[in-house]
Every structure is written in C-alpha cells, then in structure tokens.
C-alpha cells in the first residue's frame, strides 16, 4: 500500500489561484495540502517578467514573479503543506459516507502517495491552443511555437527562438511577446489578427506594438507554413468578417519563427475525470460564487474561465479556498453531510459572451461577485443590470466594454427575492453601438 496523507482541503495547482485558495482555506483553520507539478510555485506568473500585475489589488504595477512572491512568502510562512514536483495522476471520489477525494500523486521527492481531503480545489490553470487547433496547414518544421512557450524559452531558459517572427493572434501574450522578442533583437514582422479588432488589452496595444512600430494586421491570418526543417516563410491572407479567407489575397511572408497567440483553454482533465460537466461558453465547470461545482469540488482561476487580470484570479481563488474549507469543516461538524443551500441560476442575456458563476448559493454570507464578458465592443459603454423575475436588483454603468476585458459586479444574495430561480444579466447599449 502507498502512503496516504490526509487534509481538510487539497488544492491542485500552485499558480495565483491555487496560492490564494490555499491561503484563505488555511486562514480559516483548515489543514491544507497544495500540490504543484512544477519545481516552484507561481504558475504562469513565473515567466511573466513584464509588469502589469496587481494594479487592482495592490495599486502597484508588479511583475509576475513579484506578484507571485507576495503570496508565496505568505504560504511559506503558513502551515500549508506544499508538495512540489508532484503530479496528480488520478482523482477519485470516495463512495463512503462523507465522500471526499483521493488523489494519486507522483512526486520526485516524495515518491508515489495518495492524498485525501473532503474538499478539493482545482486551480490547474489553462493551456494554449496550438497551430493544429486553428488548422494551419503546410509543413511541420521547427520554429512554430505558442506564445507561452516562446515566453518560457526567452524568460526562463534564456534562449532566443529565432531571428524574424510573425505573430498570429493579438491576445495579450502575443502582444507582450512581440515586445519581448523585439527587445531581444529579433525582428517582429507583424502581428496578424483574424478579427476586425485586436483581442488584447488597450494598454498592451500601445506599449507593446505602437511604441515599437510593430504593425498590426487586422482581418488577416496565416494559412500555411513553409519549410521542411525550419520555418522559411508563412502564407498570410486577408479574411472577411466571417473569418473566411479571401481568395487571391495570399502573400508569402519570409520568417523563421511563427508565434501563436490564438487562445487559451481551461485545463480540465481532472474535472472531467471527476464527472463535472463543462459550460460550453467558458470551457470550465459550472460553479456558484465560491467556485463550488458540487460535492466538495471547487474551481478557480483560469481553470474556471480564462481571466485577463491576475487580481481577479486571486479573488476567485480566495472565494474557492474559503468555501472549500467551509465545506470540509461543516462535513466534520455535521458528521458526514453538508447541506446544500438554495441556488439560483445566473443567466447572461444577449450581448454577453458569458457570466461566471453560473449559480448563486443564497445561503452563503457576504457579497457574491459576478464576472462577465460582452461579445462585441461597446465604445460608448453600457449599463449592465441584474434582474430577477422582471425586477431590477442592481445596475451599473460601464464607460466602455470590450470582449477581452472582463468586468465584475457584486450582489448581496440576501436581495434575491423569494421564489425566483434565475437572475438575468442584461445589457442596455447606446444607440451608436446598436446594429
């Protein structure tokens, strides 16, 4: 038999979401185990050497490592048990009374062991979409890499991926890498974006492209890669508003590197293996305001939906950690069962990409945060309201709304009227943005 370690809360993933979750769970007195497969804590922040982290939370522009350090220091000063270079190979739910979860872990230093806790926090982050997933054809040479991989090579390994790069996708990581590669002496031929508007934050467009004179080609994409051993060129082409390539618009762009920043997907293998269904619009599990996905599983950070700001990631981690600890301790107190509270669904009306959480548990104290994204740019801004059974509970004006930028609303669950089973998020736009 392999060794079994027991905790109240097990957190999988040591990025900002997992760090915050572990800290807040531990703060309530729960025994917390934090499992991270890499050699140190910090998640994706380890490689984000640019600054732009922590503005909301700390009112400061920190670099990724600096932001992570603040949490890691707290974790190191706590009694959270950190298992580094430990990989969760499988997770299973115990059928016995009280349930709980057993994780099969593989670790360099601790060997193979099992870990048990009544509550599980999934903070596994996200992964990048690859060239195959956006169906770029042609050859398969060296020199095609995702932006996150390029970032890792440059910022962690200290190697330069090429001499002349084309960047596909105007997401933040792509923009940041355009600047980083330029600073390292590479030539960035341009950033190509399929859509009619860029998907990165406005500040990154200015600071990473305009300031360096790097062209942004909207409504263009890369359709083919050339070069047998190393990239020699790519074919770029114009697309129409539906994303279809306009015949005859193809042109050859010489380069030795193609960097892809074409989207992130929540990492949810464990959630799926535990039988959680996914929300097709977020690609993450459906949860309540504490990240609760049911039966003692809590999900936070990029594993839940892809966030643009780390500050919100930490916030969602804290909520999940608190509720996970609450669940674990109440099971202990109630002798094996945690009564679920009354839940109402949160539904995003027309104009939204999605809203998270998908449910609000009305028995939970304190305000619930609802994060949302709109599906098109509203330059004139809009009023967003939350209503229940035709009655508006609250409304807030936003000066501008863009799909890449996540926004938040807070609601007091106590204000939800009796007998209603769903809350509607609604958008009132300005005339200029209609049509």
């Amino acid at each position, binding site marked *: *038999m*392999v060794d079994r370690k027991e905790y109240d809360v097990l957190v999988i993933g040591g990025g900002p979401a997992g760090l915050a979750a572990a800290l807040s769970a531990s703060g309530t007195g729960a025994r917390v185990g934090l499992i991270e*497969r890499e*050699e*140190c804590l*910090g998640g994706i922040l380890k*490689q*984000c*050497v640019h600054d732009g982290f922590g503005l909301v939370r700390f009112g400061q522009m920190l670099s*990724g*490592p600096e932001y992570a350090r603040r949490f890691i220091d707290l974790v190191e000063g706590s009694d959270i048990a950190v298992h*580094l*270079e430990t*990989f969760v*190979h499988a997770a299973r739910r115990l059928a016995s009374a009280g349930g709980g979860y057993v994780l*099969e872990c*593989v*670790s*360099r*230093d*601790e*060997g*193979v*062991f*099992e870990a048990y806790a009544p509550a599980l926090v999934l903070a596994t982050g996200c*992964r*990048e979409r*690859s*060239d*195959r*997933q956006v*169906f770029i*054809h*042609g*050859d398969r*040479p*060296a*020199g095609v*890499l*995702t932006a*996150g*991989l390029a970032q*890792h*090579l*440059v*910022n*962690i*390994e*200290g*190697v*330069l*991926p*090429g001499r002349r790069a084309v960047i596909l996708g105007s997401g933040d990581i792509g923009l940041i890498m355009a600047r980083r590669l330029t600073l*390292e*002496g590479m030539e960035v031929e341009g950033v190509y974006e399929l859509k009619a508007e860029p998907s990165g934050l406005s500040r990154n467009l200015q600071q990473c492209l305009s300031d360096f004179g790097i062209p942004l080609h909207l409504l263009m994409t890369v359709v*083919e890669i050339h070069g047998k*051993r*190393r990239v020699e060129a790519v074919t770029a082409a114009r697309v129409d508003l539906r994303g279809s390539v306009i015949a005859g618009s193809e042109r050859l762009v010489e380069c*030795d590197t193609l960097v892809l920043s074409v989207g992130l997907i929540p990492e949810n293998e464990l959630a*799926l293996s535990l039988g959680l269904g996914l929300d097709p619009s977020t690609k993450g599990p459906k949860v309540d305001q504490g990240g609760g996905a049911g039966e003692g599983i809590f999900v936070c950070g990029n594993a839940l939906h892809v966030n643009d700001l780390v500050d919100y990631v930490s916030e969602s981690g804290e909520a999940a950690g608190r509720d996970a600890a609450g669940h674990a301790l109440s099971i202990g107190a109630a002798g094996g069962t945690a009564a679920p509270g009354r839940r109402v669904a949160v539904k995003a009306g027309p104009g939204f990409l999605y809203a998270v959480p998908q449910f609000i548990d009305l028995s939970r104290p304190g305000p619930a945060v609802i994060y949302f994204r709109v599906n098109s740019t509203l330059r004139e801004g809009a009023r967003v309201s939350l209503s229940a059974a035709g009655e508006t509970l609250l409304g807030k004006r936003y000066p501008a709304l863009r799909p890449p930028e996540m926004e938040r609303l807070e609601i007091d669950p106590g204000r939800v009227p009796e007998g209603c089973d769903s809350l509607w998020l609604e958008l009132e736009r300005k005339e200029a943005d209609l049509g």
Partner: protein
Amino acid sequence: MKLDKLRSALRKRFGDGVEAREDRGSIVLEGQLPSWEARLEAGSRAVGAGSRGVVNDIVADDCAWAASERLDSPRDPGRDEGEKGLEGLSFDVAVIGGGVVGCAVARELAKWRVSTILLEKEEDVAFHASSRNDGMIHDGFAARPGSLKAKFNILGNRLWEALAWELGIEFRRPGSIVLFRNAATQALYPAFAARAAMNHVDGWEYWSPRRVRAEEPNVCDGQHGAFFLPSAGVISPYRATVALAESAVMNGVRVELGTCVKGFEKEGDRIARVRTDRGDFRASVVVNAAGNWADVVASFADDRFFSLHQRRGTDMILDSQAGGLQRHIMAMPSIMQAKSTTKGGGLVTTVEGNILVGPTATELPGRESYATSTSELRTLERHFRINRRLLPSMAITYFAGVRACTWEEDFIIERSRRVANLVHAAGIQSPGLASAPAIAEEVARISLDVLCATMKVSPNASFVAVRDAPLELRRLSLEERAKAVSRNPSYGRIVCRCEEVSEGEIRDAMKSPLPVRSLDAVKRRARPGMGRCHGGFCTPRVMEIVADELGIGIDEVTKKGPGSRIAVGMTKSGLGEGFRG
C-alpha cells in the same frame, strides 16, 4: 504489339508530348505533359504493356520541380563535414533505409552470422513513411488476390503478434468492422467472403446490424450489418521500427544514421562498393529498402526497371478522451470503394488509446512532402458519420505520410535480375507495415542465398530475440510505480503532462542502443509532446534533458536533426529572468 497499342493510345490522348519505349522489358515513358494528373494517367495506362515495370520519366509542367528532387542527408553547414567513418570497411550485407522494412530485414539478418550494416540518411530510424501511417496490421482482405501485397500481408499479420511480444511493444487485435451502408453493399457479402477466402484471411464473419450495435453502441443509425475481420491488429509503427532497429543493434548489426547512399561502384554484374557521404565501403549483398527513394537507389546500380509515384495520405488524431468511444477499427466504404481495391480509410483505434481518422489517398508529387491541407481534412469528415459520438472538434492534430507506389501498385520483393548481389524491397506502400516481418524473412532468405555462393553462413547462436521493453510508468499499477520511483526518483518527475511521461523515461530512451539526438526522436520513443497541448508545456523541459544527455547547449537542441534547431542562440543576458526555483 502491346507497345504499339500503348503508343497509339498515348498519342490519341496526349498528342506528341509523350513517347514510350521498351528497355529490357520495362516501358519507359518520356516527354512533357502540362499537368501532374496527365502524367499519372499516362503512367497508369502503360501498366501491362511490357514484361517488367513502368518507368515514368514524363515531366509535368505544373510540377517540374518534382523531377529534380535531391537525395541527401541533411547536414549542418560546417559540422561533421568531411567525416568519413565508413571508408574502407567491408560488410556481408548493407541494408539501405531505416524504415520498418529495412529495420526488420536487419534484425532478421542478425539471426545469422553475417556482418550487417544499415544505412539511414536521417538522424533517426522511422523518420519517413514508417512513422507516418495508421499503425494498422491489416487482415489482408483488401489486397488484390494473387498480389504480393496479399501474400505478404497475410504472412506478416500472422508474424506480428509474436514479434511484438519479443520486441516488448504493444500489439492488439481489435478486429475490423467493415460496415454495410445500405442493402446494395450488404448484398456484396458473398463477394467479400469469396475474396477473403482467396486471400487466406484468418477468419471473417457476417455481423447483423444488431450485433454491430451491441459491439459498438455508438455506431451510426441505418447500418446494414458488417463484414467483421477479427485478425486486424494495431501497433505503434514508430515504436515497432525503433524496437526492430534496437534489437538489431543489440544483436550485432551496425546502424549508421545520418548516412546517405549516393551510388554504387560495380564490378561486372555485381555491386563492389557502396558510396556514401561518409565514405565508401565493400558489401557482398545490398538490400534496397529505401522507401520513396527505392527507384533512385535502383538507378545507382543501373537497375531502374520501375519508378515510383507518391500517394499522400492524411490522418487526423483524436484526443485520447475520444478513445473510449469505440473498440474496433471501423470503416464504411461506399459501393465504389467496396468494388475497387483501395481501402478508403476509416476509424482506427490506436494502441495509445487515440482514434485515427483516415487516411486519405491523394496523388501528389513530393517524395518527402508532408504538408497537410484543408481539402484533405475535409475528405476525412465523412468518417465521422460512422460513430455518432465522434466530432471533428476532438482532433488534436493531423499529419501526412507518403506511400511509395509502383505503377503496377504492387510490392517488388526480389533479387535483381541484372545485378547479382542486389535485393529489392521496393514499392512498399500500404500494407507495408503489416507485411514487414514477412518481407524481412523473404529478403533475408534471398540475401543469404546470395551470400552462400561465396561464404559459409551459419545461424547466430547468441541471437537474443527478446528485447527488454522500456518502462512505461503510466501503465504500471500504483504499487509498481511507487517501487520504480523509489528506485529512481526521476521516474517521479512528470515532464509531459498530457501523456504523463517522466524525466526518467526520457533519459532511458536516450540511453537506448540507438543514438537519440532530437526532440522528435525522443517523442517516437517516450511520447512527450504527443498529447493535446503539443509540447507547449514540456518542450523546454525535454530540451533541457536532451541537452544534458548529449552534453550540448540547450540552444543546439533540434526538432528533427540538422537544420531544425528550436532556438537560434542565447538571449542578450543569456539568463532567464523569470524564476524557476
């Protein structure tokens, strides 16, 4: 007579652009045609007009580059240049080509006391067709009765199970369900059965629609039952090729990677010396297992009695999460395909637990052109109809391979009629993987026959058939895994999260009997980067291990040998600024 008929047919169809002549039994086509399609048509028409093969030297205007493709080993400029390690050596047998066929031949020869060298121009074995296929060990039903394909396929299918066991690689027989899509195809059952009998296929059955549904609950509605072939198997083609090569090396075969055969020196009707880019050496027998270059290699000996055309095949790989949705290999040919000899592709369950969708079969120039295209993928979409729960969005990647086809569409496995010590294993298109063990036995037998004339050949009493399989941690029980990790902690450090590959497994692969020099070579052995994230996460970690094992800088690590470095140098500081613990 036949030649005259061919000439007039060609003239009628193509005017004066094309000429046909006979050369020692082969039909040689020359001239110029506007398109690749026209060239193909001319080549097919010439089949049967001579007593030997068709040699199609027509240049197509729209693909003129195809006539000047060069046979070469990739080299980093300035590195290893002028190294002539093979100069002046001599061997009993030289095998050209480190695909599944060449490697199987080399291992077969290792059972005898003969000195064998295997030459592969790339930095690893299984670089070309042998790592770019469906991994199916066909049942032998689809091959044309009486063909060499049919003969060697059936024999190979029977050999693979025991061979895979010896090599320590996984082999499974999921069986193949050929669905009848309507009453008309269902009516072909007796014809199917007759053909299976003619090919000596090992077992077949009619499955009622209900039986099909019971075996494969996700099968499409409206099927009319199926022709079931229980002997169809699957294997990992690159693992098989690597294992064959390793086993050959362990038993004394010399494998030289990164070595290209550039010509032969003949003495009378024999090859005296083999010329390579790393020196010239003597060989008593030469085996041509050069895949898509086999006709060029034959020409080095003035024995080009056939030529090859390339049929590209594209496959889609579905996420392993889809793997559980189907147990058997499944296909649903249209009535046209059912009557013809092409297999038309389908859904193949792999040993790794993925599903392969494909392959396509498209005539395109390029002996080593593996570009995929949207139109190729589109032709694969129809296979998704077979299984109601499979979706194109489950694809994690796709790849292409190139089949080396003679114009007669059959294998050539014979001793050269013009060169006394040359043996051809050419035109080994699908089902070449399935047939490889049987082809190897035949080629080894012929080679030994040739050798026997000049030397005494005896069995190699110290031949070790069983190769120790490398550890695969994810397949162990928790307890076994715990033991392995406590013995070697690097088995506990997971480097590839999608396929769950540990550092220890990668280090093991790099210490194997064959040199492993690139990320793709590591991938072929231990699978890091083969999963849904395509190495986005593990690439730097695998690079570190490869650099460490080879004693080179991390910026020198390549994806697939010379000319394919991942990085071009260090950053300005040469240091990572993020933190890594």
